[in-house]
Every structure is written in structure tokens, then in C-alpha cells.
């Protein structure tokens, strides 16, 4: 019998809230975090996309200038979210050799990398900062969180594009089940609202171009969706072996019942049109958590708002849940906060845990004309979830054909 793992702490910094209480309040209300970018580089490089969803609270309002100086913006977000989750867990005493970190990023320290390149070209090699390498490395967020909390049972960095944050939760569950740690701080962080990634995602036609109306640009499942909206931020969860949490009388949000990771092996960016890899991931996560389709009351969907992405996810949900798919309250929270790339799965894991704990499904905004080919029961005003034992799923899919799913159960 595998060790049971529970969630005892939550943290987040996102475009709709600089902490979990603010984010959750807004997620139930239904707000948009997308706004026109005021940066001069938008016009300078004639970017085809003029908006994004910035973190509501800049990391520099939370961290001191000196501590932020040695961190890429992605790492700053990671530390902000991880500190909130840690404080929220109420853990005061811990065997640091039994505390691990699994913190993901999709892209890594892209601001640091490109700033250093600009510096090299404009001022020469002498002016490239000595902290450049530790700031740009993708394991920067995991390392900084480990350093901040004194986590010595390993600091891991799963990288699987937009599935990274969910895969970090998967890694965290495995670490505890395998007996390699008793507590894991897991999550994901991303800070890629920089002209180069915007140009690159726009070039592959992945971004919405609704420049005159950013608040309505992210519209998963809507007939007129035209791409995702870049977001930034971080989400963090404290996972804990159940016996460890019970021994200290912890407040338990929910059980992390099961997780899974699969690969499409179909195409480097396009999702398998039938969603076969996603279906296998959904079934595997439910099997791992000993969950039946009928137990699922809520899904936090990946639903990025791209024309090609939303449909295969529906096919996968239908294949994995069968007829029960019609009875599941589906939330597409990227409608509110945009797509946080490698952080999205972690933030959505936080939202899924809150949904189970608070028994409320968060809102999908901008759904005006639902795509008739995706007849899901989409939550457009906050909805109560049933009493009794309930479970929910959160999906994430990433370029490269990565599929990651977590299953959360009420306690």
C-alpha cells in the first residue's frame, strides 16, 4: 500500500492575485488579468501581439531588492509562491534532510539570458554579470526554493513545456511514496513576457491577436478563440506524507490521490487530434488514485484557447470519463489569467485543490458562443460542488507531446 500524500500548504502569484486568497476570490468572481502592454519594446519591435497577463503583484513588492537581484524574474515568482505555501502549511519544525523540492519552469531564465546577450554585444564580456549562469539555469527556481527553505532531500526541475508545473506535482508525489522525502514543496514558475518569446509564440500562430480587446482574448471553448494569452507567475504546493501531517495536527486541504505523465510520440507541437496520449494520462491518474470516473465532479482543463488545442482535450475527457463527462463541472481558468506556461499546471493544481476544499468550481470567462464540437459542461458562474467524497482532475499538456494529470480527492 503506497503512502498516502496530502496537501497542506498553497501559494501562488498570478495575474489575478498575488496570493492564494486573492487569486481564489477572483477565480470565483471571474476577472481578466490580460492587459495592453505599455512597454516601449512592443512598438520598437513591431510585435504582432500587444498584450499579456502580468502578475498582479510584482515580485519586487514582496522580495527585498537585494535578494531579488540574484534571481531571474521566474525564480523571484517561485520564491514568492513557495514562501506563501510554506507559511500556509504551518510547518515549524522539520527534518531538513527529509524535505525536498520539485519546482518546474517551462523556459527558464529567459530574461537573464537575453539581457546578458544584450550586455555582451553592447558593453563587452567584462560587463556580463557573474550571477548570469545561476540566474538563467532552468533549475534556478528549484535551487532558490531549496536554499530558502533549507530543503536538503533533493531539488528537482521537471521540464516539459506547458506540462512542467503538473509534472512537478507528479514528481513530488513519487518522492514521498518512494520514501525519499516526507515533505515536498512543488510547483512551477514562469516569467517570459519578453519580446523574444512573444515574437516566437506569435510566429507559430499560438497567440491571440485580439489587440483591441485583451480582456476578452483568452476564450477557451469559444467558437471565436484565436490563441492563448501569455501569462506569468508561479504556483506552489506543500505535499506531505499523511502520517507526517496527522502527527503535527496539520490542516489538510485534500489528498493528492494520483498523478500520471504520458507522451504522445505524435508531433513536436500539434496535439494528437484524438487525444490518445491525454486519454492514457487521464486514465492512468485515476487508476493511480483508485478513482472511478463517477467520483470526478470537477476538471480544471488545460484549455489554452487555441483553435487546435481545446478539441482533443474534450475527446480525451470523453474517452476517459465515458458518459460521466456530461456530469463534470469543467473550468478553463486560463480564460482569466492567460497561460502561465511552465507555471500553469502548478497554479491550476492550487485552484483544483481549492475547488475540492472550498467545494466550488471557478469561473470560465469569455465563453459567448460555445464551440458546438466541445459540448462540455463549462462553469461560467461559480458553482457549488457536491457534499460527500469528491474528486477532481487537472490536465496539462506541453509542446513535445507531454501530458500530465493530477487527481485530487476530498478528505
Amino acid at each position, binding site marked *: 500500500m503506497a503512502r498516502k500524500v496530502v496537501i497542506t500548504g498553497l501559494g501562488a502569484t498570478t495575474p489575478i492575485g498575488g496570493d492564494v486568497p486573492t487569486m481564489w476570490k477572483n477565480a470565483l468572481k471571474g476577472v481578466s488579468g490580460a492587459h495592453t502592454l505599455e512597454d516601449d519594446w512592443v512598438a520598437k519591435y513591431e510585435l504582432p501581439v500587444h498584450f499579456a497577463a502580468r502578475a498582479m503583484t510584482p515580485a519586487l513588492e514582496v522580495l*527585498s*531588492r*537585494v535578494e531579488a*537581484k540574484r534571481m531571474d524574474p521566474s525564480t523571484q515568482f517561485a520564491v514568492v509562491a513557495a514562501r506563501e505555501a510554506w507559511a500556509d502549511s504551518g510547518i515549524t519544525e522539520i527534518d531538513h534532510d527529509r524535505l525536498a523540492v520539485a519546482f518546474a519552469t517551462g523556459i527558464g531564465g529567459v530574461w537573464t539570458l537575453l539581457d546578458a546577450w544584450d550586455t555582451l554585444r553592447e558593453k563587452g564580456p*567584462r*560587463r556580463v*554579470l*557573474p*550571477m548570469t549562469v545561476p540566474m538563467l539555469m532552468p533549475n534556478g527556481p528549484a535551487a532558490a526554493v531549496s536554499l530558502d527553505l533549507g530543503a536538503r532531500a533533493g531539488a528537482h526541475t521537471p521540464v516539459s513545456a506547458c506540462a512542467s508545473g503538473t509534472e512537478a506535482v507528479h514528481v513530488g508525489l513519487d518522492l514521498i511514496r518512494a520514501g525519499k522525502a516526507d515533505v515536498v514543496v512543488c510547483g512551477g514558475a514562469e516569467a517570459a513576457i519578453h519580446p523574444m518569446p512573444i515574437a516566437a509564440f506569435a510566429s507559430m500562430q499560438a497567440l491571440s491577436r485580439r489587440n483591441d480587446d485583451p480582456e476578452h482574448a483568452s476564450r477557451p471553448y469559444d467558437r471565436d478563440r484565436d490563441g492563448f494569452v501569455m501569462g506569468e507567475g508561479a504556483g506552489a504546493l506543500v505535499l506531505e506524507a499523511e502520517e507526517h501531517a496527522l502527527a503535527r495536527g496539520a490542516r489538510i486541504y485534500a489528498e493528492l490521490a494520483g498523478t500520471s505523465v504520458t507522451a504522445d510520440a505524435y508531433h513536436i507541437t500539434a496535439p494528437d487530434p484524438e487525444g490518445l496520449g491525454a486519454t492514457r494520462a487521464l486514465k492512468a491518474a485515476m487508476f493511480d488514485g483508485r478513482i472511478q470516473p463517477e467520483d470526478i465532479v470537477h476538471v480544471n482543463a488545460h484549455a489554452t484557447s487555441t483553435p487546435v488545442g481545446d478539441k482533443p482535450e474534450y475527446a480525451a475527457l470523453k474517452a476517459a470519463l465515458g458518459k460521466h463527462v456530461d456530469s463534470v463541472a469543467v473550468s478553463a481558468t486560463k480564460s482569466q489569467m492567460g497561460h502561465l506556461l511552465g507555471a500553469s499546471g502548478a497554479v491550476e493544481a492550487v485552484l483544483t485543490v481549492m475547488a475540492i476544499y472550498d467545494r466550488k468550481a471557478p469561473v470560465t470567462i469569455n465563453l459567448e458562443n460555445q464551440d458546438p464540437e466541445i459540448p462540455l459542461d463549462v462553469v461560467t458562474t461559480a458553482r457549488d460542488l457536491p457534499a460527500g467524497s469528491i474528486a477532481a482532475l487537472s490536465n496539462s499538456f506541453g509542446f513535445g507531446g507531454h501530458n500530465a494529470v493530477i487527481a485530487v480527492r476530498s478528505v
Partner: protein
Amino acid sequence: MASNEEILAGLAEIVNEETGLAPEAVELDKSFTEDLDIDSISMMTIVVNAEEKFGVRIPDEEVKNLKTVGDAVGFIANAQA
């Protein structure tokens, strides 16, 4: 040409920017590592910023000889002379 007092004040400003230490804590007899707790990466950042501020070149092999704030002020003053 900056006076030693001006170099010290400029250096204190750079140290403050990098580490958050109060500028008045940056005194001539203070050791960068022992007293001010500055690690090698911060020291390199301070050196490069000092080069730009004072228009001098501080070779990498010279940095290890700059043990105290006074050593750095002296080096910069000489290099400017």
C-alpha cells in the same frame, strides 16, 4: 580625478546597491569577506561596477589582493593617477 574620500563614497554606494549594506558600514579598514560578508560573486560584480564608475581596469588576478575596502580605494586611486 576622484579624491580618496570620493572613491570611498562611490564604492560604498556600489556595495550598498549589490548587498544592501548601509554605505556608512563600508569603512577603509573593513575586510570585504570577513567584515562585510561579501562572497566572490558579489565581489566580482562590485569590481566591474567600480571599473565603470571610476574609469579604471582592475585585472582579475588583482582582485584577490583587494582584501579591505582601503585596498580597493588605494588601487583605484593609483590606477586613476
